[in-house]
Structure formats: C-alpha cells, structure tokens
C-alpha cells in the first residue's frame, strides 16, 4: 500500500513539475545553449506592483492585472539561421491539446501565434511564439490573466510582440476601421 501511495505521490509531483508551464520542455532543451537568451520573472516581482500608487484609473487597472500574474518566462534567439525550424519545433513540444489559439499574425518577415489556456472561465496562461527569418522567441505568461490589459502590461515590461493584442481589445475604437463589418 505504501508503495502505491509513494508511486502516486511521485507521479503527481512529476506531472505537476512538468505542467508548470508550456515552455518547460523548451527551456530544458535549450537553457544550456549559450546562443539562447532567457528571462524569468517571479511572482514576487509582480507582487511588488500591489503596493504602487496609480495616477489614473487606467494605471490602476494595469497594476491590478500585473499583481495577479504569477510568472513570466522567455526563451529567445537572435540572429538565428534556424528560427523557422525552432518556431515549428515549439509547436511539437507544447502540449497543444491544452491550449486554444487566440490570435495568429503573419508579417512579411515573421509569424506569431498567441495561445491561451483557460480553466474555470479564467485565462491561466498566455503563450506567444514568434519565428522570423532571423529571430525566434517563445514567451509564457502565467497567473490570472486579464487579456484586456496584456498589451499594456507588455508595454510596461518592454516585451515586444504583446502590442499585437491591443488591436483585439479595441476593434471599434480604431480610427480607420477598414474591415469592421463583414
């Protein structure tokens, strides 16, 4: 009986560890590779924002959204000849069945995909995968995520790419509104 309990506990611990975030496998594979850059931001850092004073109600919303985040991880490679291959590989290492595609962007020189994980009606993880002709980046943001605030959070943290989500939040406020009604 003890062995069964130990095995179950071990399995839970192991799966819990791997399920921490979607790019764990990617990190494990490439974290020792010096050609990759990586960034990890802990929940403690995001927690510091709870004590900050906001000048405007908008700022207050952003600070509130930031304080609910639990972590951020980025793995990136600049001047990478194999950026496109890495982009494709990312999708093989991420358990896609757990995620929904939120947005897909194809620019002339790069592809981007945003994936989300939802549980209990709340978004618990946002993944951004970017692959260009020379650069590759995969980012995961986890915690309680307010999609309306993500582009602003991206601006605050200098994370390139998250501004793409801004358009998704404000479809009616656009000045040009080229394809508003189908």
């Amino acid at each position: 009986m003890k062995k069964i309990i130990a095995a179950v506990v071990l399995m839970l611990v192991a799966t819990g560890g791997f399920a921490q975030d979607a790019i764990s496998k990617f990190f494990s594979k490439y974290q020792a590779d010096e050609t990759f850059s990586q960034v990890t931001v802990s929940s403690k850092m995001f927690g510091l924002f709870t004590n900050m004073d906001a000048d405007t109600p908008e700022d207050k919303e952003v600070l509130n959204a930031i304080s609910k985040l639990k972590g951020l991880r980025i793995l990136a490679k600049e001047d990478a000849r194999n950026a496109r291959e890495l982009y494709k590989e990312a999708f093989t290492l991420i358990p896609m069945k757990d995620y929904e595609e939120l947005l897909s962007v194809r620019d002339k020189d790069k592809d981007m995909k945003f994936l989300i994980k939802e549980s209990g009606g709340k978004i618990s993880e946002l993944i951004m995968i970017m692959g260009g002709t020379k650069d590759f980046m995969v980012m995961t943001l986890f915690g309680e995520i307010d999609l309306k605030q993500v582009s602003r959070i991206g601006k605050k943290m200098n994370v390139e790419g998250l501004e793409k989500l801004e358009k998704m939040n404000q479809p009616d406020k656009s000045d040009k509104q080229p394809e508003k009604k189908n």
Partner: protein
Amino acid sequence: MKTFIASVILTGLISTSLAQSNSFTTFREKFSGEDDVHHFSINGFFARTILRLATEDEMNEAVKEIKNIRLVTVPKAAFEKQKVTVEGFKRELKKDAFEELAFAKEHKENITLYIQSTLKHDNRYMVLIDEPYVVTLVEFRGKVDPDILLKNGPLSFNKPQ
C-alpha cells in the same frame, strides 16, 4: 577642505558598512585579500548623485529614494581558489531571506535580481552578475519603482535598439 571631504566620505562608509546584509558581508569577506577583488560603498546623497549622472531621466526618478549602494567584483579565479561556486552563494542568499525577482541570461552573462523585504517602502535589493571571468555583486537599499526595474532590467534585451 580635504579633511572635511575625507571625514564626510569616512562617515558615509562607516554608516554604509553597518547597513550591509549578511550575504553581502559574507561575500565580501570571503574574497577580501584575493587578487583583483574590488569593493566600494556609497551612501545616500553620493549614491543618488552618481546614479543620476550615470542614468537617464526616467531612472533619475526611480533612484531618488535609494539610500546606499555597495558593489564588489570578484574574478572567477578567486572562486576556484576558495573552492566555492556562484550557485552556492545563491543558496546563501535564499537562507538570508533574499527572494528572486527576475533572472536573465544573455551572451554568457547571467543576471539575477533579488529582494529582501524589510519595511514596506525600504527594501534591500541584490543584483548578481555572473560573467565568464568575473562576478559582480551590487546591493542597494531603499525604495525602487518596480515599473522601472522591469522596464530597464532583464527584459530590455528583447526590445529592438
């Protein structure tokens, strides 16, 4: 005048040394006497003045409530000589109640930012910069805008120049 300046600096250094964290003191003392180990401490007004001269306008605002800064650089050879590792020091930081805020790795340079919460608006921060041949440890105390830490800290590599 020289005596006056010297006494001000001395006062600054004495009060600074009293405010050091255990981790910083341990680190500094471990390598004192080794070749190419450099250390300096500056307090309040001096620290802010130097930071304001060295940084841009936005950072000026962020550093206005920093109370003191200490820095020590240690060559990797000294680590080998003392038979210690950077990872071992990271464990010491955790024991000294420093919590990791962020970590960034780029071009063989590992930067880790820690915080030791003291009072609500008076934290102690530690930046550990681990490069191939040298390790730099910077400690500063006071209030720092986390917004600036995020913007100008480890994530800034991601932004095009």
